[in-house]
Protein backbone atom coordinates (compact mmCIF):
# COMPACT_ATOMS: atom_id res chain seq x y z
CA UNK A 1 0.00 0.00 0.00
CA UNK A 2 1.46 3.31 -1.09
CA UNK A 3 1.78 6.19 1.37
CA UNK A 4 -0.53 8.38 -0.68
CA UNK A 5 -4.19 7.81 -1.45
CA UNK A 6 -5.03 7.43 -5.13
CA UNK A 7 -8.23 7.47 -7.12
CA UNK A 8 -9.25 4.31 -8.91
CA UNK A 9 -11.36 6.11 -11.49
CA UNK A 10 -10.65 8.34 -14.46
CA UNK A 11 -12.16 11.71 -15.31
CA UNK A 12 -15.94 12.01 -15.54
CA UNK A 13 -17.36 13.02 -18.88
CA UNK A 14 -18.57 16.59 -18.89
CA UNK A 15 -20.91 18.32 -21.33
CA UNK A 16 -20.90 22.09 -21.50
CA UNK A 17 -24.43 23.46 -21.93
CA UNK A 18 -23.91 27.17 -22.26
CA UNK A 19 -22.26 28.21 -18.99
CA UNK A 20 -23.07 25.09 -17.05
CA UNK A 21 -21.52 21.68 -16.79
CA UNK A 22 -23.57 18.54 -17.05
CA UNK A 23 -21.67 15.56 -15.64
CA UNK A 24 -22.25 11.96 -16.67
CA UNK A 25 -23.01 9.62 -13.78
CA UNK A 26 -23.04 6.15 -15.35
CA UNK A 27 -25.19 3.50 -13.66
CA UNK A 28 -25.17 0.64 -16.14
CA UNK A 29 -23.18 1.51 -19.25
CA UNK A 30 -23.61 4.43 -21.60
CA UNK A 31 -27.36 3.82 -22.01
CA UNK A 32 -27.87 3.94 -18.23
CA UNK A 33 -26.05 7.22 -17.64
CA UNK A 34 -27.59 10.04 -15.60
CA UNK A 35 -26.90 13.52 -16.98
CA UNK A 36 -26.54 15.58 -13.83
CA UNK A 37 -26.22 19.35 -14.01
CA UNK A 38 -24.02 21.44 -11.75
CA UNK A 39 -26.27 24.35 -12.65
CA UNK A 40 -25.26 27.65 -11.10
CA UNK A 41 -22.58 25.87 -9.04
CA UNK A 42 -20.59 25.09 -12.18
CA UNK A 43 -17.99 27.82 -11.37
CA UNK A 44 -17.08 25.84 -8.23
CA UNK A 45 -16.19 22.72 -10.23
CA UNK A 46 -14.46 24.74 -12.96
CA UNK A 47 -12.53 26.48 -10.20
CA UNK A 48 -11.29 23.17 -8.76
CA UNK A 49 -10.00 22.11 -12.18
CA UNK A 50 -8.09 25.41 -12.28
CA UNK A 51 -6.70 24.93 -8.77
CA UNK A 52 -8.96 27.55 -7.18
CA UNK A 53 -11.36 27.12 -4.27
CA UNK A 54 -14.50 29.22 -4.67
CA UNK A 55 -17.24 29.80 -2.14
CA UNK A 56 -20.24 32.08 -2.07
CA UNK A 57 -21.35 34.81 0.29
CA UNK A 58 -24.41 37.01 0.61
CA UNK A 59 -23.74 40.72 0.04
CA UNK A 60 -27.36 41.87 0.27
CA UNK A 61 -27.51 44.66 2.85
CA UNK A 62 -31.15 43.73 3.47
CA UNK A 63 -30.28 40.16 4.51
CA UNK A 64 -31.36 39.62 8.15
CA UNK A 65 -28.32 37.42 8.89
CA UNK A 66 -25.52 38.57 6.57
CA UNK A 67 -26.46 42.31 6.57
CA UNK A 68 -24.34 42.90 3.50
CA UNK A 69 -21.29 40.98 4.70
CA UNK A 70 -22.40 37.36 4.91
CA UNK A 71 -20.15 34.47 5.84
CA UNK A 72 -18.47 32.37 3.17
CA UNK A 73 -20.35 29.17 2.33
CA UNK A 74 -18.58 26.08 1.13
CA UNK A 75 -20.10 24.03 -0.48
CA UNK A 76 -21.39 27.11 -2.25
CA UNK A 77 -25.02 28.03 -2.82
CA UNK A 78 -26.33 30.15 -5.64
CA UNK A 79 -29.02 31.69 -3.45
CA UNK A 80 -28.91 32.90 0.15
CA UNK A 81 -31.12 30.79 2.45
CA UNK A 82 -31.81 33.82 4.66
CA UNK A 83 -32.90 36.47 2.13
CA UNK A 84 -33.24 34.38 -1.07
CA UNK A 85 -31.10 36.80 -3.09
CA UNK A 86 -28.26 35.59 -5.34
CA UNK A 87 -24.95 35.07 -3.51
CA UNK A 88 -21.63 36.20 -4.99
CA UNK A 89 -18.51 34.13 -5.64
CA UNK A 90 -15.41 34.65 -3.57
CA UNK A 91 -12.10 32.80 -3.75
CA UNK A 92 -10.41 31.27 -0.69
CA UNK A 93 -6.74 32.09 -1.23
CA UNK A 94 -4.21 29.40 -0.29
CA UNK A 95 -6.90 27.41 1.52
CA UNK A 96 -5.72 25.83 4.75
CA UNK A 97 -7.23 24.85 8.05
CA UNK A 98 -7.44 22.04 10.54
CA UNK A 99 -9.11 18.66 10.85
CA UNK A 100 -12.38 19.16 12.72
CA UNK A 101 -13.54 15.56 12.53
CA UNK A 102 -12.48 12.48 10.61
CA UNK A 103 -12.89 8.78 9.99
CA UNK A 104 -10.61 6.17 8.50
CA UNK A 105 -12.66 4.34 5.87
CA UNK A 106 -11.50 0.74 5.70
CA UNK A 107 -13.94 -0.29 3.02
CA UNK A 108 -16.42 1.68 0.98
CA UNK A 109 -19.55 0.62 -0.89
CA UNK A 110 -19.87 -0.31 -4.55
CA UNK A 111 -18.59 2.35 -6.91
CA UNK A 112 -16.25 4.09 -4.48
CA UNK A 113 -13.55 5.87 -6.49
CA UNK A 114 -11.10 6.47 -3.64
CA UNK A 115 -8.62 3.72 -2.93
CA UNK A 116 -9.26 2.28 0.57
CA UNK A 117 -8.22 2.76 3.26
CA UNK A 118 -8.31 6.53 3.43
CA UNK A 119 -9.19 9.34 5.78
CA UNK A 120 -12.47 11.09 5.10
CA UNK A 121 -12.01 14.43 6.84
CA UNK A 122 -14.14 17.40 7.83
CA UNK A 123 -12.04 20.54 7.55
CA UNK A 124 -12.44 23.91 9.24
CA UNK A 125 -10.90 26.13 6.57
CA UNK A 126 -9.78 29.60 7.57
CA UNK A 127 -12.24 32.17 6.29
CA UNK A 128 -14.97 29.61 5.62
CA UNK A 129 -18.11 29.48 7.76
CA UNK A 130 -19.17 25.90 7.11
CA UNK A 131 -17.13 22.75 7.67
CA UNK A 132 -16.09 21.03 4.47
CA UNK A 133 -16.06 17.28 3.94
CA UNK A 134 -13.17 16.01 1.86
CA UNK A 135 -10.44 13.37 1.90
CA UNK A 136 -6.82 13.30 2.87
CA UNK A 137 -3.99 12.18 0.59
CA UNK A 138 -1.93 11.00 3.55
CA UNK A 139 -2.37 7.71 5.37
CA UNK A 140 -0.24 8.65 8.39
CA UNK A 141 -2.10 8.63 11.76
CA UNK A 142 -3.94 11.90 12.38
CA UNK A 143 -5.86 13.63 15.13
CA UNK A 144 -8.44 16.40 15.44
CA UNK A 145 -6.64 19.75 15.17
CA UNK A 146 -3.98 18.61 12.70
CA UNK A 147 -3.21 21.28 10.11
CA UNK A 148 -4.03 20.60 6.47
CA UNK A 149 -3.89 22.47 3.19
CA UNK A 150 -6.03 22.12 0.09
CA UNK A 151 -4.79 20.40 -3.05
CA UNK A 152 -6.47 20.16 -6.43
CA UNK A 153 -6.70 17.75 -9.33
CA UNK A 154 -6.22 20.02 -12.27
CA UNK A 155 -5.82 19.75 -16.03
CA UNK A 156 -5.73 16.15 -17.28
CA UNK A 157 -5.95 14.88 -13.69
CA UNK A 158 -9.26 16.62 -13.02
CA UNK A 159 -12.27 14.36 -12.46
CA UNK A 160 -14.74 17.26 -12.72
CA UNK A 161 -16.31 16.16 -9.44
CA UNK A 162 -15.95 17.04 -5.76
CA UNK A 163 -12.97 14.65 -5.73
CA UNK A 164 -10.89 17.37 -7.39
CA UNK A 165 -10.53 18.96 -3.94
CA UNK A 166 -8.47 17.05 -1.40
CA UNK A 167 -6.13 17.84 1.43
CA UNK A 168 -2.67 16.98 2.64
CA UNK A 169 -1.11 17.34 6.04
CA UNK A 170 0.94 20.49 6.55
CA UNK A 171 4.35 19.36 7.68
Amino acid sequence: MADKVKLVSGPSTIHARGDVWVVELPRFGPEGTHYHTYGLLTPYFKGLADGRLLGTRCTNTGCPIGRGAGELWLPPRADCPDCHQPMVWDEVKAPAGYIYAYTYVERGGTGLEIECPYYQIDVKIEGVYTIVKSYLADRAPIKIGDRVRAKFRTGAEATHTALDLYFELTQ
Partner: protein
Amino acid sequence: MISFAPGNLRVPKWTRPVYMVAAGTTDFRKRYPEKKLEELCMMAFRMLLEENDLKLDPLEVKGLFNLACYGEFADHFQDQLLCEAKVHDYLGLDPLPNVGIKTGGATGGSAMLMGATTVASGMSDCTLVLGWERMDEVKTWTGNYYIATAACKDFETRLGRIYASYYAPMARRFQEMYGVDERVRAAIAVKNRGYACHSPFSQQPGRHTIEDVLAGNIVSDPLRFLECCAMSVGSSAAILCSEELAHTLTDHPVKLYIAGGSHTLRTGDRRPMRIPLLPHETEEDYRQLYADMEKQDGRWPGFESFGATRFAAYMAYRMAGVQVPIEDLDLVETHDAFTISDLQTYGDVGLTLYGREQDYVTSGDCYHANPHTGRPGQCPSNLSGGLLGTMHAVGATGIFQCGEVFWQLQGKYDKFHGEPAMWTRFGKTKPADWSSLQVEDPRRGLAISHAGVGSHVTCAVLEKAW
Protein backbone atom coordinates in the same frame (compact mmCIF):
# COMPACT_ATOMS: atom_id res chain seq x y z
CA MET B 1 -25.85 32.03 14.22
CA ILE B 2 -29.44 31.54 13.20
CA SER B 3 -32.52 32.01 15.31
CA PHE B 4 -36.15 31.00 15.18
CA ALA B 5 -38.95 33.44 14.51
CA PRO B 6 -41.78 33.12 17.06
CA GLY B 7 -44.15 31.81 14.40
CA ASN B 8 -41.79 28.92 13.67
CA LEU B 9 -42.00 27.82 17.29
CA ARG B 10 -45.78 27.47 17.35
CA VAL B 11 -46.65 24.24 19.14
CA PRO B 12 -48.92 22.02 17.02
CA LYS B 13 -52.53 22.14 18.15
CA TRP B 14 -54.54 19.23 16.81
CA THR B 15 -58.27 19.59 16.26
CA ARG B 16 -58.90 16.32 18.11
CA PRO B 17 -56.78 13.73 19.94
CA VAL B 18 -55.26 10.74 18.18
CA TYR B 19 -55.19 7.18 19.52
CA MET B 20 -53.22 4.07 18.69
CA VAL B 21 -55.13 0.85 19.19
CA ALA B 22 -53.11 -1.89 17.51
CA ALA B 23 -49.62 -2.82 16.29
CA GLY B 24 -48.40 -5.56 14.00
CA THR B 25 -45.09 -6.75 12.66
CA THR B 26 -43.18 -9.46 10.87
CA ASP B 27 -39.92 -10.76 12.17
CA PHE B 28 -36.83 -9.28 10.53
CA ARG B 29 -34.11 -10.98 8.56
CA LYS B 30 -31.12 -9.96 6.52
CA ARG B 31 -32.54 -12.03 3.67
CA TYR B 32 -36.16 -13.12 3.41
CA PRO B 33 -36.53 -15.11 0.17
CA GLU B 34 -39.42 -17.13 1.64
CA LYS B 35 -41.87 -14.27 1.10
CA LYS B 36 -42.49 -11.52 -1.39
CA LEU B 37 -42.70 -7.97 -0.09
CA GLU B 38 -46.49 -7.73 -0.19
CA GLU B 39 -46.73 -11.12 1.54
CA LEU B 40 -44.62 -9.75 4.39
CA CYS B 41 -46.91 -6.72 4.60
CA MET B 42 -49.88 -9.10 4.87
CA MET B 43 -48.19 -10.83 7.84
CA ALA B 44 -47.88 -7.52 9.70
CA PHE B 45 -51.41 -6.53 8.66
CA ARG B 46 -52.92 -9.77 9.96
CA MET B 47 -51.16 -9.47 13.31
CA LEU B 48 -52.46 -5.90 13.48
CA LEU B 49 -56.09 -6.92 12.96
CA GLU B 50 -56.13 -10.31 14.62
CA GLU B 51 -53.85 -10.27 17.66
CA ASN B 52 -54.42 -6.98 19.47
CA ASP B 53 -57.53 -8.06 21.42
CA LEU B 54 -59.70 -5.64 19.46
CA LYS B 55 -63.38 -5.78 20.30
CA LEU B 56 -64.48 -6.09 16.66
CA ASP B 57 -63.71 -8.87 14.22
CA PRO B 58 -60.71 -8.30 11.92
CA LEU B 59 -62.85 -7.66 8.85
CA GLU B 60 -65.08 -5.28 10.81
CA VAL B 61 -61.96 -3.34 11.82
CA LYS B 62 -60.83 -3.31 8.23
CA GLY B 63 -64.23 -1.84 7.38
CA LEU B 64 -63.38 1.21 9.49
CA PHE B 65 -60.29 2.31 7.54
CA ASN B 66 -60.57 5.60 5.65
CA LEU B 67 -56.98 6.00 4.48
CA ALA B 68 -53.54 4.40 4.53
CA CYS B 69 -50.12 6.01 5.06
CA TYR B 70 -47.26 3.85 3.77
CA GLY B 71 -43.61 4.10 4.65
CA GLU B 72 -40.93 3.01 2.20
CA PHE B 73 -37.41 4.38 2.36
CA ALA B 74 -35.91 3.67 -1.03
CA ASP B 75 -37.48 2.91 -4.37
CA HIS B 76 -34.15 1.62 -5.63
CA PHE B 77 -33.99 -1.15 -3.02
CA GLN B 78 -37.45 -2.41 -4.00
CA ASP B 79 -36.75 -1.55 -7.67
CA GLN B 80 -40.44 -0.76 -7.89
CA LEU B 81 -42.04 2.63 -8.14
CA LEU B 82 -45.55 2.89 -6.72
CA CYS B 83 -44.96 -0.08 -4.47
CA GLU B 84 -47.67 1.46 -2.29
CA ALA B 85 -50.29 0.61 -4.91
CA LYS B 86 -49.15 -3.01 -5.01
CA VAL B 87 -49.29 -3.38 -1.24
CA HIS B 88 -52.61 -1.53 -0.94
CA ASP B 89 -54.22 -3.76 -3.55
CA TYR B 90 -52.71 -6.88 -1.96
CA LEU B 91 -54.16 -5.96 1.45
CA GLY B 92 -57.57 -5.53 -0.21
CA LEU B 93 -57.90 -1.84 0.56
CA ASP B 94 -58.75 -0.46 -2.88
CA PRO B 95 -60.22 2.03 -3.69
CA LEU B 96 -59.45 3.81 -0.40
CA PRO B 97 -56.83 6.58 -0.76
CA ASN B 98 -53.24 5.95 0.23
CA VAL B 99 -50.09 8.04 0.31
CA GLY B 100 -46.44 7.02 0.33
CA ILE B 101 -44.21 8.81 2.81
CA LYS B 102 -40.46 9.05 2.44
CA THR B 103 -37.99 10.72 4.79
CA GLY B 104 -34.99 8.38 4.81
CA GLY B 105 -34.42 6.57 8.09
CA ALA B 106 -37.30 8.53 9.65
CA THR B 107 -39.77 7.23 7.06
CA GLY B 108 -41.63 5.09 9.60
CA GLY B 109 -41.88 7.96 12.07
CA SER B 110 -43.01 10.33 9.35
CA ALA B 111 -45.68 7.83 8.27
CA MET B 112 -46.91 7.84 11.90
CA LEU B 113 -46.79 11.65 11.94
CA MET B 114 -48.76 11.99 8.72
CA GLY B 115 -51.16 9.25 9.77
CA ALA B 116 -51.79 11.07 13.04
CA THR B 117 -52.59 14.31 11.24
CA THR B 118 -55.21 12.58 9.09
CA VAL B 119 -57.04 11.59 12.28
CA ALA B 120 -56.35 14.86 14.14
CA SER B 121 -57.79 16.86 11.26
CA GLY B 122 -60.90 14.77 10.79
CA MET B 123 -59.82 13.65 7.32
CA SER B 124 -59.96 10.10 8.66
CA ASP B 125 -61.48 8.33 11.66
CA CYS B 126 -59.30 5.29 11.24
CA THR B 127 -55.93 5.27 9.44
CA LEU B 128 -53.68 2.36 8.62
CA VAL B 129 -49.97 3.13 8.97
CA LEU B 130 -47.79 0.44 7.45
CA GLY B 131 -44.16 0.41 6.38
CA TRP B 132 -41.66 -1.97 4.87
CA GLU B 133 -38.24 -2.40 3.37
CA ARG B 134 -36.70 -5.16 1.33
CA MET B 135 -32.92 -4.64 1.30
CA ASP B 136 -31.94 -8.13 0.18
CA GLU B 137 -32.31 -7.83 -3.59
CA VAL B 138 -28.81 -6.42 -3.89
CA LYS B 139 -25.43 -7.33 -2.46
CA THR B 140 -24.59 -5.65 0.84
CA TRP B 141 -21.97 -3.38 -0.71
CA THR B 142 -24.39 -2.20 -3.36
CA GLY B 143 -26.91 -1.67 -0.57
CA ASN B 144 -24.32 0.51 1.12
CA TYR B 145 -23.95 2.47 -2.11
CA TYR B 146 -27.72 2.98 -2.25
CA ILE B 147 -27.90 4.15 1.36
CA ALA B 148 -24.95 6.51 0.85
CA THR B 149 -26.95 8.29 -1.85
CA ALA B 150 -28.63 9.82 1.23
CA ALA B 151 -25.46 11.90 1.47
CA CYS B 152 -25.14 14.97 -0.77
CA LYS B 153 -24.64 13.82 -4.35
CA ASP B 154 -22.60 16.84 -5.43
CA PHE B 155 -20.28 17.29 -2.46
CA GLU B 156 -20.26 14.18 -0.27
CA THR B 157 -21.35 10.85 -1.71
CA ARG B 158 -18.13 10.26 -3.63
CA LEU B 159 -16.22 10.72 -0.36
CA GLY B 160 -17.73 7.58 1.17
CA ARG B 161 -20.20 5.10 -0.26
CA ILE B 162 -21.01 3.59 3.11
CA TYR B 163 -23.22 5.49 5.53
CA ALA B 164 -21.20 4.57 8.62
CA SER B 165 -18.54 6.92 7.26
CA TYR B 166 -20.94 9.83 7.82
CA TYR B 167 -21.65 8.85 11.45
CA ALA B 168 -18.06 8.02 12.32
CA PRO B 169 -16.85 11.68 12.21
CA MET B 170 -19.67 12.57 14.60
CA ALA B 171 -18.56 9.77 16.91
CA ARG B 172 -14.99 11.05 16.69
CA ARG B 173 -15.96 14.64 17.43
CA PHE B 174 -18.38 13.67 20.22
CA GLN B 175 -15.66 11.56 21.80
CA GLU B 176 -13.18 14.44 21.62
CA MET B 177 -15.59 17.09 22.87
CA TYR B 178 -17.01 15.16 25.82
CA GLY B 179 -14.15 12.79 26.61
CA VAL B 180 -16.16 9.67 25.85
CA ASP B 181 -14.76 6.26 26.65
CA GLU B 182 -15.34 3.92 23.70
CA ARG B 183 -16.43 1.30 26.21
CA VAL B 184 -19.61 3.35 26.72
CA ARG B 185 -20.48 3.04 23.04
CA ALA B 186 -19.66 -0.65 23.22
CA ALA B 187 -21.96 -1.04 26.25
CA ILE B 188 -24.85 0.32 24.17
CA ALA B 189 -24.26 -2.36 21.53
CA VAL B 190 -24.09 -5.03 24.24
CA LYS B 191 -27.31 -3.82 25.88
CA ASN B 192 -29.45 -3.51 22.76
CA ARG B 193 -28.24 -6.70 21.10
CA GLY B 194 -28.77 -8.42 24.44
CA TYR B 195 -32.39 -7.22 24.65
CA ALA B 196 -32.89 -8.55 21.13
CA CYS B 197 -32.29 -12.05 22.53
CA HIS B 198 -35.73 -11.83 24.13
CA SER B 199 -37.53 -10.86 20.92
CA PRO B 200 -38.84 -13.37 18.40
CA PHE B 201 -38.73 -10.58 15.79
CA SER B 202 -35.02 -9.90 16.12
CA GLN B 203 -32.54 -10.20 13.30
CA GLN B 204 -29.23 -10.13 15.12
CA PRO B 205 -29.58 -10.94 18.78
CA GLY B 206 -26.37 -11.64 20.62
CA ARG B 207 -24.97 -12.01 24.08
CA HIS B 208 -21.81 -10.01 23.56
CA THR B 209 -19.34 -8.46 25.93
CA ILE B 210 -17.79 -5.02 25.73
CA GLU B 211 -14.56 -6.78 24.80
CA ASP B 212 -16.30 -8.57 21.89
CA VAL B 213 -17.49 -5.23 20.53
CA LEU B 214 -14.08 -3.59 20.86
CA ALA B 215 -12.35 -6.57 19.26
CA GLY B 216 -14.59 -6.36 16.19
CA ASN B 217 -13.55 -5.19 12.75
CA ILE B 218 -13.64 -1.48 12.09
CA VAL B 219 -16.37 -0.47 9.63
CA SER B 220 -15.51 3.21 9.61
CA ASP B 221 -13.20 4.22 12.42
CA PRO B 222 -14.07 4.48 15.30
CA LEU B 223 -17.28 2.52 14.63
CA ARG B 224 -16.91 -1.22 14.78
CA PHE B 225 -18.96 -4.00 13.27
CA LEU B 226 -21.25 -4.60 16.27
CA GLU B 227 -21.88 -0.85 16.59
CA CYS B 228 -23.68 -0.70 13.24
CA CYS B 229 -27.11 -2.00 12.25
CA ALA B 230 -27.54 -4.32 9.27
CA MET B 231 -29.50 -4.55 6.02
CA SER B 232 -32.95 -5.76 6.97
CA VAL B 233 -36.21 -7.08 5.49
CA GLY B 234 -39.66 -6.89 7.06
CA SER B 235 -42.82 -4.87 7.67
CA SER B 236 -44.62 -3.23 10.61
CA ALA B 237 -48.03 -1.62 11.02
CA ALA B 238 -50.22 0.44 13.34
CA ILE B 239 -53.85 1.55 13.58
CA LEU B 240 -54.49 5.19 14.47
CA CYS B 241 -58.02 6.38 15.17
CA SER B 242 -60.31 8.91 16.83
CA GLU B 243 -61.12 8.85 20.55
CA GLU B 244 -64.62 7.51 20.01
CA LEU B 245 -63.40 4.69 17.80
CA ALA B 246 -60.53 3.92 20.15
CA HIS B 247 -62.95 3.08 22.94
CA THR B 248 -65.10 1.04 20.56
CA LEU B 249 -62.09 -1.01 19.51
CA THR B 250 -60.21 -1.56 22.75
CA ASP B 251 -60.36 -1.22 26.51
CA HIS B 252 -56.69 -0.23 26.48
CA PRO B 253 -56.22 2.66 24.04
CA VAL B 254 -53.00 4.63 23.87
CA LYS B 255 -52.89 8.33 23.10
CA LEU B 256 -50.32 9.46 20.51
CA TYR B 257 -48.58 12.82 20.26
CA ILE B 258 -45.99 13.22 17.54
CA ALA B 259 -43.96 16.07 16.03
CA GLY B 260 -41.04 16.39 13.66
CA GLY B 261 -37.94 18.43 12.95
CA SER B 262 -35.34 18.61 10.21
CA HIS B 263 -31.79 19.78 9.71
CA THR B 264 -29.28 19.93 6.82
CA LEU B 265 -28.24 16.91 4.78
CA ARG B 266 -24.58 17.87 5.20
CA THR B 267 -23.42 17.88 8.82
CA GLY B 268 -20.84 20.59 8.17
CA ASP B 269 -23.52 22.99 6.94
CA ARG B 270 -25.28 23.15 10.31
CA ARG B 271 -25.12 26.72 11.47
CA PRO B 272 -24.63 27.38 15.15
CA MET B 273 -27.70 28.28 17.17
CA ARG B 274 -28.83 28.57 20.77
CA ILE B 275 -30.22 25.33 22.16
CA PRO B 276 -34.04 25.35 22.08
CA LEU B 277 -34.82 24.61 25.72
CA LEU B 278 -37.08 21.79 26.85
CA PRO B 279 -39.64 22.59 29.58
CA HIS B 280 -37.30 21.54 32.42
CA GLU B 281 -34.15 23.27 31.15
CA THR B 282 -32.81 26.79 31.76
CA GLU B 283 -30.17 28.90 30.01
CA GLU B 284 -28.06 28.48 33.13
CA ASP B 285 -27.92 24.72 32.53
CA TYR B 286 -25.87 25.36 29.40
CA ARG B 287 -23.71 28.35 30.40
CA GLN B 288 -20.71 26.09 30.96
CA LEU B 289 -21.39 24.03 27.83
CA TYR B 290 -21.34 27.11 25.62
CA ALA B 291 -18.08 28.21 27.25
CA ASP B 292 -16.52 24.77 26.76
CA MET B 293 -17.65 24.69 23.15
CA GLU B 294 -16.00 28.00 22.50
CA LYS B 295 -12.69 26.60 23.72
CA GLN B 296 -12.92 23.67 21.32
CA ASP B 297 -14.25 25.67 18.37
CA GLY B 298 -17.51 23.81 18.89
CA ARG B 299 -20.99 24.85 17.93
CA TRP B 300 -24.47 23.61 18.73
CA PRO B 301 -25.71 21.28 17.37
CA GLY B 302 -22.48 20.85 15.41
CA PHE B 303 -21.31 17.28 14.92
CA GLU B 304 -22.22 16.28 18.47
CA SER B 305 -25.98 16.66 18.57
CA PHE B 306 -29.10 16.56 16.43
CA GLY B 307 -30.98 19.84 16.07
CA ALA B 308 -33.88 18.03 14.39
CA THR B 309 -34.33 15.69 17.36
CA ARG B 310 -34.27 18.57 19.81
CA PHE B 311 -36.79 20.49 17.72
CA ALA B 312 -39.12 17.48 17.51
CA ALA B 313 -38.86 16.85 21.27
CA TYR B 314 -39.40 20.56 21.96
CA MET B 315 -42.75 20.31 20.16
CA ALA B 316 -43.84 16.81 21.20
CA TYR B 317 -43.19 17.43 24.92
CA ARG B 318 -45.28 20.59 24.84
CA MET B 319 -48.07 18.78 22.96
CA ALA B 320 -48.06 15.91 25.46
CA GLY B 321 -47.41 17.91 28.62
CA VAL B 322 -44.07 16.21 29.34
CA GLN B 323 -42.33 18.43 31.88
CA VAL B 324 -39.33 16.47 33.12
CA PRO B 325 -38.52 13.70 30.62
CA ILE B 326 -36.62 11.40 33.00
CA GLU B 327 -39.57 11.45 35.42
CA ASP B 328 -42.43 11.64 32.96
CA LEU B 329 -41.24 8.93 30.55
CA ASP B 330 -41.10 5.28 31.53
CA LEU B 331 -39.34 3.90 28.47
CA VAL B 332 -37.86 5.08 25.20
CA GLU B 333 -36.94 3.69 21.80
CA THR B 334 -34.02 5.56 20.19
CA HIS B 335 -32.88 5.24 16.60
CA ASP B 336 -29.70 3.29 17.36
CA ALA B 337 -28.62 2.71 13.76
CA PHE B 338 -25.16 3.24 15.24
CA THR B 339 -24.13 3.23 18.90
CA ILE B 340 -23.16 6.88 18.60
CA SER B 341 -26.64 7.98 17.47
CA ASP B 342 -28.16 6.31 20.55
CA LEU B 343 -25.69 8.13 22.81
CA GLN B 344 -26.19 11.50 21.09
CA THR B 345 -29.98 11.25 21.40
CA TYR B 346 -30.13 11.18 25.22
CA GLY B 347 -29.13 14.85 25.34
CA ASP B 348 -31.40 15.81 22.45
CA VAL B 349 -34.50 14.39 24.15
CA GLY B 350 -33.50 15.81 27.53
CA LEU B 351 -33.15 12.55 29.45
CA THR B 352 -29.92 14.19 30.51
CA LEU B 353 -28.26 17.52 29.80
CA TYR B 354 -26.13 17.94 26.68
CA GLY B 355 -22.58 16.94 27.46
CA ARG B 356 -23.62 14.36 30.05
CA GLU B 357 -24.85 11.64 27.70
CA GLN B 358 -22.03 9.32 28.65
CA ASP B 359 -22.86 9.65 32.36
CA TYR B 360 -26.48 8.91 31.60
CA VAL B 361 -25.58 5.57 30.01
CA THR B 362 -23.16 4.59 32.77
CA SER B 363 -25.73 5.56 35.43
CA GLY B 364 -27.73 2.48 34.42
CA ASP B 365 -30.98 4.44 34.03
CA CYS B 366 -31.29 3.29 30.41
CA TYR B 367 -31.34 -0.41 31.38
CA HIS B 368 -34.34 -2.61 32.14
CA ALA B 369 -32.57 -3.54 35.34
CA ASN B 370 -29.97 -1.05 36.46
CA PRO B 371 -26.70 -3.06 36.45
CA HIS B 372 -25.46 -1.17 39.53
CA THR B 373 -28.50 -1.74 41.74
CA GLY B 374 -30.45 -4.59 40.15
CA ARG B 375 -33.55 -2.42 40.47
CA PRO B 376 -35.57 -1.23 37.44
CA GLY B 377 -33.79 1.42 35.38
CA GLN B 378 -35.56 4.77 35.46
CA CYS B 379 -36.17 4.99 31.71
CA PRO B 380 -35.01 1.87 29.88
CA SER B 381 -34.16 2.31 26.21
CA ASN B 382 -34.55 -0.01 23.24
CA LEU B 383 -36.10 -2.93 25.09
CA SER B 384 -37.20 -4.04 21.62
CA GLY B 385 -33.56 -4.75 20.81
CA GLY B 386 -33.44 -1.56 18.77
CA LEU B 387 -32.00 -1.18 15.31
CA LEU B 388 -28.72 -2.75 16.38
CA GLY B 389 -30.29 -5.95 17.65
CA THR B 390 -33.70 -6.35 16.11
CA MET B 391 -34.38 -4.55 12.85
CA HIS B 392 -33.87 -1.64 10.53
CA ALA B 393 -36.10 -2.49 7.60
CA VAL B 394 -36.08 1.24 7.15
CA GLY B 395 -39.64 2.12 6.12
CA ALA B 396 -40.97 -0.05 8.95
CA THR B 397 -38.61 1.08 11.70
CA GLY B 398 -40.40 4.10 13.18
CA ILE B 399 -43.69 2.16 13.13
CA PHE B 400 -42.10 -0.89 14.76
CA GLN B 401 -40.67 1.31 17.54
CA CYS B 402 -44.10 2.83 18.27
CA GLY B 403 -45.56 -0.67 18.26
CA GLU B 404 -43.09 -1.90 20.86
CA VAL B 405 -43.79 1.10 23.10
CA PHE B 406 -47.52 0.59 22.56
CA TRP B 407 -47.38 -3.07 23.66
CA GLN B 408 -45.29 -2.10 26.69
CA LEU B 409 -47.93 0.46 27.73
CA GLN B 410 -50.63 -2.19 27.34
CA GLY B 411 -48.58 -4.57 29.48
CA LYS B 412 -48.30 -6.98 26.55
CA TYR B 413 -44.54 -7.41 26.20
CA ASP B 414 -44.87 -11.06 27.24
CA LYS B 415 -47.82 -11.75 24.96
CA PHE B 416 -45.86 -10.68 21.88
CA HIS B 417 -42.36 -11.76 22.90
CA GLY B 418 -42.82 -14.60 25.36
CA GLU B 419 -45.33 -16.96 23.74
CA PRO B 420 -43.48 -20.00 22.36
CA ALA B 421 -45.84 -20.02 19.37
CA MET B 422 -44.62 -16.55 18.38
CA TRP B 423 -41.09 -17.94 18.17
CA THR B 424 -42.09 -21.03 16.19
CA ARG B 425 -44.08 -18.82 13.79
CA PHE B 426 -40.76 -17.38 12.67
CA GLY B 427 -38.90 -20.68 12.69
CA LYS B 428 -37.22 -20.06 16.04
CA THR B 429 -37.25 -21.67 19.46
CA LYS B 430 -37.92 -19.55 22.50
CA PRO B 431 -34.62 -19.43 24.41
CA ALA B 432 -34.52 -21.37 27.67
CA ASP B 433 -33.16 -18.30 29.45
CA TRP B 434 -35.81 -15.95 28.02
CA SER B 435 -36.88 -13.31 30.49
CA SER B 436 -39.54 -10.64 30.37
CA LEU B 437 -38.54 -7.07 29.59
CA GLN B 438 -41.98 -5.72 30.51
CA VAL B 439 -41.64 -2.39 32.29
CA GLU B 440 -43.69 -2.27 35.46
CA ASP B 441 -46.90 -0.33 34.88
CA PRO B 442 -45.54 2.22 32.41
CA ARG B 443 -47.60 5.31 31.71
CA ARG B 444 -45.71 7.10 28.95
CA GLY B 445 -43.09 6.13 26.39
CA LEU B 446 -41.09 7.84 23.65
CA ALA B 447 -40.05 6.76 20.16
CA ILE B 448 -37.48 8.59 18.04
CA SER B 449 -37.36 8.02 14.28
CA HIS B 450 -34.32 9.48 12.58
CA ALA B 451 -32.94 10.01 9.07
CA GLY B 452 -29.66 10.88 7.42
CA VAL B 453 -27.16 12.46 9.77
CA GLY B 454 -30.18 13.98 11.50
CA SER B 455 -31.92 15.40 8.44
CA HIS B 456 -35.43 14.36 9.53
CA VAL B 457 -36.52 13.26 12.98
CA THR B 458 -39.89 12.53 14.55
CA CYS B 459 -40.53 12.33 18.27
CA ALA B 460 -43.59 10.35 19.36
CA VAL B 461 -44.95 10.36 22.90
CA LEU B 462 -47.34 7.48 23.60
CA GLU B 463 -49.51 7.65 26.69
CA LYS B 464 -51.70 5.11 28.43
CA ALA B 465 -55.30 6.34 28.09
CA TRP B 466 -57.45 4.13 30.24
